[in-house]
């Protein structure tokens, strides 16, 4: 590799380091993104761009065609708008619950106690399971004749058909995704908690500061950078939610747990007539939303770099 440095020179070495990754990126991520963008301006069902008729912004206008944006029923693509509202609701609740649960878990796991390593492991291990497996495990428990209903009946409560009720379906979609991912965020918060110098707490204790003040004045402010990372990462992941919920609820009942990625997947892939133009247009819009979130994250991380 020293030879490379001789050829490209010291000045250009960073490019040499970044190049392999960028080549793979370019071929397998950027190029498909560009193709995807062109797809969104074409119609028909052909696979190759050259065979697809150019339709301009028509697919976008189909997506945006609504009498009232607040009522999906009035939209040409009613499922697209339903998916947007469902995703918004999911993101709001899931991120809220996840951040809270992760924080509580991290605080408890940060206590001095025996078996701390074991408990950390317990909360972390679902992170390693595939989304499909996670959904399968829970579906198996939540079915009409599943473990949970058997438990409910044994204590005298009637069976609940969880996947028939929109509320329950959304509840379990959120519950299961929190179950699967909370370990990851807990660890990030835990790392933050452990980086807080002990002597700060000891000094506070000497001064007889109340625990409430210690939490608000020391723990939370010093945890804030990690907290933001958790918040932003959880937000981005929640917007992208697909596999787990798809296997768990199938998007139902009706369209109650159909989210935006599932809409794109169904439209462009599972329908008999694969409408790649419309699906691509929806994904470009999704990309724009995510781009905004990215900028937010970038601003945050840059501030944290400090240097």
């Amino acid at each position, binding site marked *: *590799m020293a030879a490379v440095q001789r050829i490209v020179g010291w000045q250009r070495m960073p490019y040499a380091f970044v190049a392999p990754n960028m080549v793979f990126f370019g071929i397998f991520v950027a190029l498909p993104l560009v193709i995807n963008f062109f797809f969104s301006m074409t*119609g*028909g*069902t*052909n*696979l190759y761009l050259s*065979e697809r*008729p150019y*339709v301009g912004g028509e697919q976008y206008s189909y997506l945006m065609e609504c009498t009232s944006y607040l009522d999906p*029923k009035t939209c*040409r693509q*009613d499922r697209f708008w339903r998916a947007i509202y469902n995703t918004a609701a999911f993101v709001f609740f899931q991120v809220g619950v996840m951040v809270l649960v992760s924080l509580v878990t991290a605080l408890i796991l940060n206590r001095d106690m025996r078996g701390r390593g074991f408990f950390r492991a317990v909360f972390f291990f679902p992170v390693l399971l595939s989304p499909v497996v996670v959904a399968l495990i829970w579906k198996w428990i939540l079915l*009409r*004749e599943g473990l949970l209903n058997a438990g409910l009946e044994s204590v005298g409560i009637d069976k609940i*058909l969880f*996947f*028939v009720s*929109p509320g329950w*379906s959304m509840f379990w979609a959120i519950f299961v995704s929190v179950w699967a991912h909370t370990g990851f965020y807990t660890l990030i918060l835990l790392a933050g908690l452990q980086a807080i110098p002990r002597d700060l707490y000891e000094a506070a204790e000497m001064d007889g500061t109340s625990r409430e003040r210690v939490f608000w004045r020391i723990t939370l402010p010093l945890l804030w950078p990690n907290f933001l990372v958790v918040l932003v990462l959880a937000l981005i992941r929640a917007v992208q939610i697909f596999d787990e919920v798809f296997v768990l*609820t*199938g*998007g*139902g*009942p*009706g*369209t*109650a*747990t*159909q989210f935006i990625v599932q809409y794109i997947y*169904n439209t462009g*892939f*599972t*329908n*008999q*007539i*694969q*409408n790649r*133009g*419309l699906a691509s247009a929806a994904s470009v819009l999704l990309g724009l939303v995510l781009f905004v979130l990215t900028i937010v994250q970038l601003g945050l991380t840059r501030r944290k770099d400090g240097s």
Partner: protein
Amino acid sequence: MGYSWKPVLLAGVAAVGLNAGAAFAETDLRISWYNDGNESEAMRSALDKFEEANPDIKVTLDIVPYKAILESLPVQLEAGEGPDIARVTDLGGLSQYYLDLTPYISDAAYWEESFGPFLKWLRPNAESKAISGFMTQLTVTGPYVNKTLFEQAGVDMPGDGATWDDWAGAAREVAQKLDIPIPMAWDRSGHRVAGPAISMGAKFFDDKGNPALVDDGLKAMATKLYDWHQDGTMAKDLWGSVSGSTYLGANEEFANAQVVMYMSGSWQVPQFAEKIGDAFDWWAVPAPCGPAACTGMPGGAALVAIKDTEHPEEVAKLMDYLASKDVLAEFYGKTLFIPGHLGLARGGVDFATDDPRAKHALETFSGAVPTISPIAYDLQGYKYNRVMFNALISRLGEAIVGELTLDEAFERMTSDVQQQIEEKQRQ
């Protein structure tokens, strides 16, 4: 370069070696196949015999999840990366990728005579005379009842000519007397609804042969389904959970004696024979009637040759062998599938079961074949029937859970079909 590259390179060489291993001088044919039960074993044993007789041809059965047949295969075919032969259910929709075997097979007349009505389903249009494959399985939709429950409740089963309302009433009565949670269940599938809808007078096409999903007949059937969900005749578990066109069956609930009457089809026979055994009498009954007909829907899976194959002659040789009467008789017999071969259908197949319930069910469904309405055949042969089925099922599902009114659902069904077909025609 560091030492850590070595395993990568070695592994790379190994992988190349692996790929090369498959490229013998002999012809290697690939079949993409999905499995519901034991049919891959039955097919494999037929292929083994073929390979024995033709040592220069090697046939690999690639068993994939059904999801891959439905979703990945169309993309693969479009990109020219498909297999030589595939087992498909979207018979008309994929027809542009089928190989016309006519120039290669030994006896086109045999194919015409044995598979006549089903060959039509595989053709891209009415003018085509192509022979592309045969049905590995013919299916007929129809209801099963738990006869033991009827006996226990002391309720008579409605006889020949009974309507859907008669059956629904009887099933409700049984369920009420014996405290069974689900009086009636239908597969969540547009294909299952189509037969009863035709019985109620649905036509599915207008006079010019263009798709016209929503008419009075279809409305009548859809309204019944809607009402049954509201009054508890049908549980919301199937239609009320999941979304879109997702298929769901009540086979497990039925096998568990939680359902009095179950609208499904002939393909359930093998697994009911295995799972229920003699725990209760599961009985296939003829399709209930409506004012227009007493019909189910035909359907099934076909084994088709793919146009992009590099070995059309070998493919035809294999297809000829698999489609021959003896091989098919053995295959249908082992798998308990309704034969998609007219000669065998007439002569009867010796099904490998001694379960009287399975035998009765197979007789009932085979016997229903001649009574199937011509509209049902046309619909099954229509290229974009899945577009219609999906629109029907997804919108009716949304109505049943209360997201749409029935009228809104009907409007959306029409516009869904129209929008998708318009997109398809935009070339």
